[in-house]
Structure formats: structure tokens, C-alpha cells
């Protein structure tokens, strides 16, 4: 009787274990809505320094926070446009702050060392931060790359004014009709309300750590 019981338990364990192994990393639900105040962060930059939103000296009026990464072809397609956004808006008080929240165990190309290489290759002129614990992507509700959160400084707070895509054409920069982020920042600079504060886009899902990897 005892042996039969043991056998049943060990047989039952197999599908349970299989299910645990098969379970992919779950994306957290929630995140910011337009109008929420974004929390501060202190993340490691590719030059070894720590950059925090609250003390970033270029973020005088706000910031263009972009969750992005190395490996995703959609993020790659937007690299030049992200550089252009910083070139245009950093001097106007809205610098780009790029954050990589992908788990390097899932995608080796998105490791901190590889971030340094990419930043150098492309000449990134903005912070490219490593969100190692994925806390910031979770707090913001970033789901894919690229995913933009335009923040406006209101006293000591950073208020979310736009969430979504950079523009309406990942395939062809010359065929873009709506530059969502530029329009939003221009409106904020002009003291206006953001007319289109939320858009949806296709990108690579953020690579969340699996339960086994987190401790």
C-alpha cells in the first residue's frame, strides 16, 4: 500500500514539474496611466555611473523615458529616431533616458556589457540604463520594446503625459505620418495639453525573469 502511494505521488510529480518548467515568465499587470506621477529610479548607466530621474541635470522640464533594448529588431529600427529625439529635445529640457529591462539570461545580446558596445557603436548621446531587477519596467507597466513614457516635471514630481509608440511606422521612417512623441513634447513645451496621450504599437515583449531566476 505504501509503495503504491509513493509510486502515485512520484508519477503525479512529473506533470506538475513539467508544467512548472513549461510556464513562461509572466508579465506583471498594472503600471502607470497618463496623469500618474512616475517613481524615481537609480539605475546603472553604460559608463558605470548611476543615473537617477530626480537628479538628472538635463531633465529640467521633463524626460522622454524609453524602454528599449539591443536585440529587438523593432527597437533597432528606432535607434536612429531615438538619437534624433534626444538631439532635438535634450537642449529643450526633455532628454531621452533609455532603459533596458530585459533579462540577459533570456537574451544574451541584452547584457550590460553588450549595452555598452551598442551605445558606443551607435554613438548614443543619452543614458542607456540597466534595469537589472526589472523593478522599473514593472512600476511603469512597460510591456514591450520600444515603449515610451513622456514625463513632465511638476515641482518635484514627474507626471506621465504620454504613453505608447514613437511614431506610426516602424518600417519606413520616411513614411511616418504621426510623430506621436514629438507632437506630445512640442505640446508640453508650448504649455498645452497633450492631444494624443496614448497609442498602441507592436514591439518585442520585455523578457521577464522566470520564477526560477528570481530569488
Amino acid at each position, binding site marked *: 500500500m505504501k509503495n503504491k502511494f509513493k509510486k502515485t505521488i512520484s508519477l503525479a510529480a512529473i506533470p506538475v514539474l513539467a508544467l512548472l518548467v*513549461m510556464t*513562461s515568465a509572466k508579465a506583471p499587470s498594472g503600471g502607470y496611466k497618463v496623469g500618474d506621477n512616475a517613481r524615481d529610479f537609480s539605475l546603472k548607466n553604460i559608463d558605470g555611473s548611476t543615473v537617477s530621474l530626480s537628479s538628472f541635470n538635463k531633465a529640467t522640464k521633463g524626460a522622454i523615458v524609453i524602454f528599449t533594448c539591443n536585440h*529587438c529588431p523593432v527597437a533597432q*529600427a528606432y535607434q536612429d529616431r531615438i538619437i534624433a529625439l534626444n538631439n532635438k529635445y535634450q537642449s529643450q529640457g526633455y532628454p531621452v533616458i533609455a532603459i533596458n529591462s530585459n533579462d540577459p539570461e533570456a537574451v544574451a545580446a541584452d547584457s550590460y556589457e553588450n549595452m555598452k558596445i551598442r551605445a558606443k557603436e551607435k554613438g548614443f548621446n543619452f543614458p542607456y540604463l540597466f534595469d537589472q531587477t526589472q523593478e522599473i519596467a514593472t512600476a511603469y507597466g512597460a510591456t*514591450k520594446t520600444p515603449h515610451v513614457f513622456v514625463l513632465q516635471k511638476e515641482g518635484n514630481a514627474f507626471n506621465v503625459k504620454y504613453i505608447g509608440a514613437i511614431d*506610426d511606422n516602424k518600417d519606413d521612417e520616411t513614411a511616418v505620418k*504621426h510623430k506621436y512623441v514629438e507632437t506630445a513634447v512640442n505640446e508640453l513645451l508650448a504649455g498645452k495639453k497633450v492631444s494624443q496621450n496614448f*497609442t498602441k504599437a*507592436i514591439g*518585442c515583449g520585455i523578457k521577464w525573469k522566470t520564477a526560477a531566476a528570481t530569488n
Partner: protein
Amino acid sequence: MKSVLKHFIYILIIFSSLSLSAQNVKLVKFDDVETFMNRQTDTTYVINFWATWCNPCVHELPNFGKLDSTYHNQKIKVLLVSLDFPKEFNTKLIPFVSKKKIQTEVWLLNDPDYNAWIDKVDPSWSGSIPATLVLNNKLKMKKFNEKELNLEELNALVKPFMSQNDHQ
């Protein structure tokens, strides 16, 4: 005479293997997908949104190929809608479809203003792929799932639509 026959057989084999592996991947706009979604029939439509650049998408793709055999002789139609870069149609998508011997119908959706049509697929869709829509207009049933589906999960998603139909 013998060698002519041999050559004829070789040519026949080559042509038949080519026709087995080839499929015409259509380049479409969202209007085409919408028309497909609105077909007023009693067929269950399974539409999977994917791309060759999306690893979880590529990982789950074979499961969709299995649906036809699982529901052999039942009214089901599977459509794989790719969001690959149109400029990589010939360099990435076609070779991928050919290499993986994908028999399921594949469309390349060249409609990059995603914000204009994502909600028409499902208002809850955040835009991340893979994403799967199952619908049956006769039964007025629709289910949307925005995640990588293993075979068990995909079957569980589709089964309620199929068990409603009479087996013919």
C-alpha cells in the same frame, strides 16, 4: 531510353517537392484581415499574430500547424498574420516559411499604423505579440489571448468553439 526515364522521374520529384513546400504568402492591409474576421460563416477562425523576429512567436508556431489535423473534417481555418518588416518579405519571411515547411496560410500585414487597427482585433490588446484571436461569427463567439500558447493552451482555447459544431 532508361536514362530519359530516370531524368523524367528526377524532374517529377523535384517539381512535386517544390509544390509541396511552396505557399503564396499574401501581402495585405488591415482591411483584408477585417474582412476575414467578418466572414459570416459557421467556420471557426484562428488568427495568430506573429513575426520571425519574435522568438516566443516562432516557438509556438508549430502548434497552429497541428490544429488542422486535430480538427480534421471540422470547420476550422487557421491564419498566420505576420508583422515582419515588409522589406524583409523575400529575405526573411519567405525563407522562414519555406524552411519550416509551413502549410498554414500566412499573410504579411503591411499596415504599420498599428494604433489605427489594434483595437479592432481586440480592445484589450496591448500590441504585444504573439497574440491569438479565435472567433466564430455564426456562434457569436470570440476569444483573444495575448501570450505564447503551448499546445495544451491552444487546444483549450479552440475546443469550446469546435464542440458546438455538429460532426459531419
